């Protein structure tokens, strides 16, 4: 087994296990206690924890600092990086900074547009795009050079991930877009939340037909619904989300106090169905502000205990 980094995620995936990743959002304050607590809630049930980077363009404690807090607690963070707020100088600088703290995973993203957040009047940067950020990290790691060409004496050894949204339009380029991210250097993929299983399977079939599942590890995104209200909101207002009417109907059919339990069951059923498919290498469980439910989902989906890797 050839490893490019010290990433636990890389080891688990390359050993052929189904990986489980999760995600925590940093606080809107300078107090790290919340993110540390969230990390400890889920640490025995997941292999690594993504830390979001000012998600939905709302200003928060920075992803890098939150990753360092988790790393100090002995947890394995995935540094999410969006290209919305930093140019290539700042991005490369933060990549070196992350590696200097032993952070071994990065997820390269565009980032939600700033108009969704708390500073809609902000300038956006987009010096490079998410595809080019993947290239940048791989270039720094594998060539040992900055984009500008200068040598990096101790290159950053990061396992490089990217996002994929099988539900965004135009659908016909969604498999080619994944191929493009793989060509850019993506080693693992975490997808948008999967609710429309049929559409996801259609996309995955296209991925498998091109043999792309043998070139990258794919972790479908799973987010449990807490209520029918959340399902309706996500269907209506969250960009790139595909929430089928049947799912909303199913949640509507149970009493309000039982809806969150039903949401967990739907998530577990989705994992059980998808984990049998070729091209699925694990799951990215994003229980938004509901991290305490991650252990239950992982256990009920038959993904516990987590494999131990040296």
């Amino acid at each position: 087994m050839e490893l490019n980094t010290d990433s636990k995620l890389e080891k688990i995936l390359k050993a052929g296990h189904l990986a489980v990743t999760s995600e925590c959002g940093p606080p809107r304050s300078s107090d790290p206690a919340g993110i540390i607590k969230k990390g400890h809630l889920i640490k025995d049930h997941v292999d690594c924890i993504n830390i979001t980077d000012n998600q939905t363009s709302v200003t928060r404690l920075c992803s890098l600092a939150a990753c360092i807090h988790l790393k100090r607690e002995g947890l394995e963070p995935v540094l999410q990086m969006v290209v919305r707020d930093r140019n290539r100088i700042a991005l490369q600088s933060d990549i070196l900074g992350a590696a200097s703290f032993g952070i071994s995973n990065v997820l390269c993203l565009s980032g939600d547009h700033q108009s969704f957040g708390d500073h809609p009047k902000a300038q956006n940067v987009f010096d490079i795009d998410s595809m080019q950020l993947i290239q940048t990290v791989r270039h720094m790691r594998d060539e040992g050079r900055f984009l500008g060409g200068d040598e990096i004496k101790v290159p950053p050894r990061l396992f490089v991930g990217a996002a994929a949204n099988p539900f965004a339009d135009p659908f016909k380029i969604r498999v080619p877009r994944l191929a493009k991210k793989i060509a850019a250097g993506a080693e693992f993929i975490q997808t948008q939340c999967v609710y429309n299983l049929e559409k996801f399977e259609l996309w995955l079939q296209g991925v498998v037909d091109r043999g792309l599942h043998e070139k990258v590890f794919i972790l479908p995104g799973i987010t449990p619904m807490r209520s029918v209200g959340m399902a309706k909101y996500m269907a209506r207002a969250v960009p790139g989300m595909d929430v089928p009417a049947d799912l909303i109907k199913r949640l509507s059919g149970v009493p309000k106090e039982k809806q969150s339990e039903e949401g967990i069951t739907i998530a577990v059923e989705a994992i059980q169905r998808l984990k049998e498919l070729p091209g699925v290498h694990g799951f990215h469980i994003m229980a938004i502000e509901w991290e305490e439910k991650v252990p239950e989902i992982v256990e009920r989906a038959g993904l516990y205990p987590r494999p131990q890797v040296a």
Partner: protein
Amino acid sequence: MIVGEQKPFDEIWEMVKGHRQLTVFGCNTCVAVCHQGGNKEAEILASLLRMRAVQEEVTIEVVHGGIERQCEHPFFESAQEQLVASEAVLSLACGIGVQFVAGKYPSTPVYPALNTTFLGDVPADGLFTEKCQACGDCVLGVTGGVCPVSRCCKRLFNGPCGGSANGKCEISKEIDCAWQLVVDRLEALGKLDDYEKIAPIKDWSKDRAGGPRSFKLEGF
């Protein structure tokens, strides 16, 4: 062409009301097409300012004038006398014209009546849409003739992002997803396979980032 929009009238009034004489000066090319800064609009704006002055009992002599283009010296000949005699000028040109007037008349206050909004086209009567940001390194040849810099809200060179839905951008259902348009064009041209070519990292030194740009023709 350059598209501009007149500033709110109150903002214009606040800028100029302290003067005793003002020339409202139109620019009759780009910003006349969008009916915001032409010589006709200068005449109307001058009338509105005179009315406001009466309402507020402010003494200010407001005259109007205009030329074809406020961004080149030769066009100024016909207005030279008027401008030299002006205490202040309210220019209805784009930001280029305002600066050109200020440069020509160093001791005359010049105010912008317009916000210069974008470089755009006229796809339908009365509709103006942004199409270029003068980034200095055109990629339209590989994007099917659709500009990702001016038309993608994240100016992605390898789009679309995950927020593209039903041909629209994640930030507004009023905005077309530029990358949906790129993909449609590539398909129409029989070049959809080109979608998988990764666009290289852009050289932004040819853009605003490299500082004010200029070029000089040899032999002039």
